[in-house]
């Protein structure tokens, strides 16, 4: 590890690796610091992605794919199962352990230097400007200097807060998640199943994402509003006892998804924040891999330019903010409002919507049609969604 780099990226998830790749590729001297001993592990993720999302950045590799997905099943609170085939979309359940690892190798190949067991514990300052980070690298305390710090530290998101950026998530916008990777179960192949309703996962959903024969990620996220009364683990254990009492559990993990607005100000002099840390996540689905890669890419490109022009001021870094605004901020804000509208639906509302969709023949069901019939069944949702589109 050198004493000085142009850019230090904190965190080796998809956001960090993409930022490191694009910044290094464009001429910057980049160092990526990851606190765990192993990039990509532990996996705190359901691992579902869309083909179109990932291939914006990298070509899909077979070793990343645990399962191809071409349909989904939505289960309503009364147990009505709705099968929705994908029209043009293809999805995957990834092996994120391999995927994240490979992304970091791609970053390294582009010229970034990567270190694990490197926990960033604070920022260092010179003349009142951020001038680097404090890191504990395999038990040794070091100061490393850099012109620009990129906070890709995921849900903890402390780097931004040290610099005064407001990354704290409101309780209601935080999903408390719990997941088991299990075998010895019957699982519908090439299909993802999502359960909604108070019983399964209030303010969120429960998922079954298959990973090969008789193996799946089974997990759920519940809104912080509800986790106050009953924990995510309790909800998942009840479901497992009910539905899969004989399952073997190979991995247990918990985590959090910030299903919030993208943070207003993800940059300041000498610092920018990307990925989960900046709440770049789809607020309806909690899908954050693709948005993390996107903000990593856009952030990395602007970071390299800032180094070239020797201008790491907030006003220059605002170009990154403009780039993400053009790309996904508006869509994520809309999705946030849809999330809010959905969260107001009662179990009876959802059952009513499900029976309406159930009357559409399977071969004619598309996600769009499903959405439209939800509107017809629940006019107040139409109003909410119209409000969303009208920007009110």
């Amino acid at each position: 590890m050198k004493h000085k780099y142009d850019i230090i990226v904190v965190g080796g998830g998809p956001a960090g690796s993409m930022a490191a790749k694009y910044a290094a590729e464009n001429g910057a001297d980049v160092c990526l610091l990851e606190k765990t001993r192993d990039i990509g592990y532990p996996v705190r993720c359901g691992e579902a992605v869309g083909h179109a999302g990932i291939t914006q950045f990298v070509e899909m590799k077979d070793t990343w794919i645990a399962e191809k997905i071409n349909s989904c099943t939505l289960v309503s609170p009364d147990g009505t199962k709705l099968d929705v085939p994908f029209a043009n979309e293809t999805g995957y359940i990834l092996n994120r352990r391999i995927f994240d690892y490979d992304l970091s190798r791609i970053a390294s190949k582009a010229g970034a230097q990567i270190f694990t067991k490197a926990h960033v514990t604070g920022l260092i300052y010179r003349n009142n400007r951020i001038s680097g980070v404090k890191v504990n690298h395999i038990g040794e305390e070091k100061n490393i200097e850099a012109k620009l710090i990129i906070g890709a530290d995921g849900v903890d998101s402390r780097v931004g807060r040290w610099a005064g950026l407001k990354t704290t998530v409101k309780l209601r916008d935080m999903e408390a998640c719990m997941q088991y990777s299990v075998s010895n179960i019957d699982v519908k192949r090439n299909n993802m199943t999502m359960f909604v309703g108070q019983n399964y996962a209030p303010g969120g959903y429960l998922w079954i994402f298959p990973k090969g024969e008789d193996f799946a990620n089974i997990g759920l996220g519940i809104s912080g509003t509800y986790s106050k009364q009953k924990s995510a683990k309790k909800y998942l254990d009840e479901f497992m006892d009910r539905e899969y009492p004989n399952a073997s559990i190979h991995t247990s993990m918990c985590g959090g998804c910030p299903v919030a607005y993208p943070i207003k100000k993800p940059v300041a002099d000498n610092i920018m924040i990307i990925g989960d840390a900046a709440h770049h996540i789809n607020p309806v689905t909690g899908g954050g891999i693709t948005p993390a890669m996107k903000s990593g890419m856009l952030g990395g490109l602007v970071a390299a330019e800032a180094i070239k022009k020797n201008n790491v001021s907030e006003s220059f870094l605002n170009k990154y903010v403009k780039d993400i605004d053009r790309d996904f901020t508006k869509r994520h804000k809309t999705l946030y409002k849809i999330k809010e509208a959905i969260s107001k639906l009662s179990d009876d509302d959802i059952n009513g919507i499900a029976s309406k969709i159930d009357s559409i023949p399977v071969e004619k069901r598309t996600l769009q049609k499903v959405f439209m019939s939800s509107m017809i069944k629940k006019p107040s949702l139409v109003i909410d969604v119209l409000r969303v589109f009208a920007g009110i």
Partner: protein
Amino acid sequence: MIKIIENKCDYCGTCASVCPKNCINVKEDDIIIDHKSCIDCDLCVYICPIEVLESVNEA
């Protein structure tokens, strides 16, 4: 005061994300709460997916 139930934490960082005082430090396999800056808002207790944190009266 926030008490950490020993050997239970999964070090996922979810509590740190809602902490208004940025006083939870989650390491690879350790969690440290800076009790001096903590304001006992209990948000971390509410969000923890596996009930690792407890709010206890200071004795």
